[in-house]
């Protein structure tokens, strides 16, 4: 599919928007740092105050980079789910992927006490958490997919996703019943979702895993376009459907799983961003949607993170509350507009 030229201006505008939001995110917070000093610090120079440099490099920069990775990864996995399930309301949170990842993390954080000391400490490392979360989301996605093959009704698939969410949530509750207060506190903080307090080392791990997920998704751009016509047409166009579906599931699990492992379950980004991108670009070509989703996902997550800081105040809102306040109305609006073709 061609027609890429008219989109150049849009991509340029989004690119500039991303840079501006990135700088704004670094500049705004409980302490407001002027743009000029932010840029000087990033360029390796010195800011007017030493404390500003410290805040930017050790606190705000890792958080902003995490926000970009989280926004890109969740939005892209949402786009993949929406095309694979032919369902505009699919997304990592709605389909229970985040719950699956939560279950994996809950087993690690809350269940580590059951294992002997040294084994527990291996499992509780960042690798252990990331593997458990990815496996958790992979398992839920496989289960949803299994059900989706029997149910042709797209709304039923969403309800099944919700049920898996409740189910995994219930298992987590049972686990919390048997855990210590300290473990419980750790898990609760994780479950509230947070972009801060992730070390540079963990950001590197997250970035590598998400990069693999993004590359896998890029490899599926052509089959994803064929899937716009449905499974049977896609097959008749020479697409190896089982292979494509496996790669899409793997990419989604890596993205949603690793992000949930480090940043907690973050709602609605994966569902809402692909729709915003489809509204802006008014296309279904996944080559355009791929880049658009990466850009818009990063922008919206940076925006949400900036809002959580409540610029100028010492308060910090939970990230999940902000994404839900923005995302939930979008979902309701989409349901109201649910007519042939328009919403997708």
């Amino acid at each position: 599919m061609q027609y890429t030229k008219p989109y150049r201006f849009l991509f340029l505008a989004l690119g500039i928007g991303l840079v501006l939001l990135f700088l704004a995110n670094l500049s705004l917070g409980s302490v407001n740092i002027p743009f000029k000093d932010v840029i000087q610090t990033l360029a390796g120079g010195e800011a007017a105050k030493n404390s500003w440099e410290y805040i930017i490099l050790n606190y705000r920069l890792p958080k902003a980079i995490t926000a970009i990775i989280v926004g890109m990864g969740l939005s892209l996995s949402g786009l993949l789910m929406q095309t694979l399930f032919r369902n505009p309301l699919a997304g990592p949170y709605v389909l229970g992927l985040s719950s699956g990842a939560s279950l994996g993390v809950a087993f690690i954080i809350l269940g580590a006490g059951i294992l002997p000391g040294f084994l527990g400490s291996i499992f509780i490392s960042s690798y252990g958490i990331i593997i458990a979360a990815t496996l958790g989301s992979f398992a839920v996605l496989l289960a949803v997919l299994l059900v989706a093959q029997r149910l042709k009704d797209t709304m039923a698939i969403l309800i099944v996703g919700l049920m898996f969410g409740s189910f995994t949530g219930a298992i987590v509750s049972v686990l919390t019943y048997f855990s210590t207060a300290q473990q419980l506190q750790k898990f609760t903080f994780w479950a509230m979702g947070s972009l801060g307090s992730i070390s540079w080392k963990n950001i590197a791990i997250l970035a590598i895993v998400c990069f693999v997920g993004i590359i896998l998704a890029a490899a599926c751009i052509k089959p994803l376009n064929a899937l716009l016509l449905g499974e049977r047409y896609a097959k008749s166009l020479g697409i190896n459907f089982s292979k494509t579906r496996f790669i899409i599931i793997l990419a989604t699990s890596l993205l949603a799983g690793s992000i949930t492992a480090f940043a907690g379950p973050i709602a609605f980004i994966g569902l809402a961003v692909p729709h915003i991108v489809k509204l802006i670009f008014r296309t279904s070509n996944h080559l355009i949607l791929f880049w658009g989703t990466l850009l818009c996902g990063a922008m919206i997550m940076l925006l949400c993170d900036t809002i959580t800081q409540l610029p100028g105040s010492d308060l910090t809102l939970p990230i999940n509350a902000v994404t839900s306040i923005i995302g939930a109305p979008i979902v309701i609006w989409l349901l109201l507009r649910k007519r042939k073709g328009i919403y997708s």
Partner: protein
Amino acid sequence: MEKDNIIVSANGISIGYTNKKVKTVIANDVTINLKAGSFTALIGANGIGKSTLLRTLTGIQLPLKGEVILNGKNINNYTAKELAQNLSIVLTEGLPPSNLTVYELVALGRQPYTNWLGTLSPEDDSKVNEALALTQLTALADKKHYEVSDGQLQSVLIARALAQDTPVIILDEPTTHLDLLHKVSLLRLLKQLTEKTGKSILYSTHDLDLALQLSDEIIVMTPEGTVQNTPEKLIESNVFDTLFTDSSIVFDKNKNGFTVL
């Protein structure tokens, strides 16, 4: 184009399902020959196995006995991409919601020929434009596919199959949901396409009267067996009397259609 150039052939095959090693035979001794440039209809009562036959002829389902030969090679030995370059399909089922324009939808037919990103070469673009022109859709190219009428969408899907540039196109009940006017214009379009492009087109239908008037050949599936011939010869052989098991529905040779007694 040579009229007797056979592209798809099946010689005495059995079709049906294998489920948990239990074979369910739907039809035995099916012999079919599709020639280049011919327009063939597939007729049969509901449940007689038209869909099973089409699935077998498109390589989705293995025959229980015998083999389907496409362009001199067993259809089940093709790779997915090779098969996509030799056989295209048009289905009855609706499309999932999307923002695809008519042009983009037709251009998806070029996927068996494009690179890993699906980028269209100038040749691909000209094939797409050719397909749009043949189906008289050029003016609608930039419309979203959900903005066109049902009849036009059917043409768009046919244009997509044309862009796929295959010697054989198989359509599953393309005239369903259309009124008489659109049924006739769609079938005329398909017939013209076989004449202009030399493609072999096979379609399943319940509209026997139209099939008799517009097809070069008809494949009739009845409980007694499957026969393929020209409409005139089939009428002569009284095969249509056995199409339905109800004796109150009889074929009227003068009307080229059925009468309910």
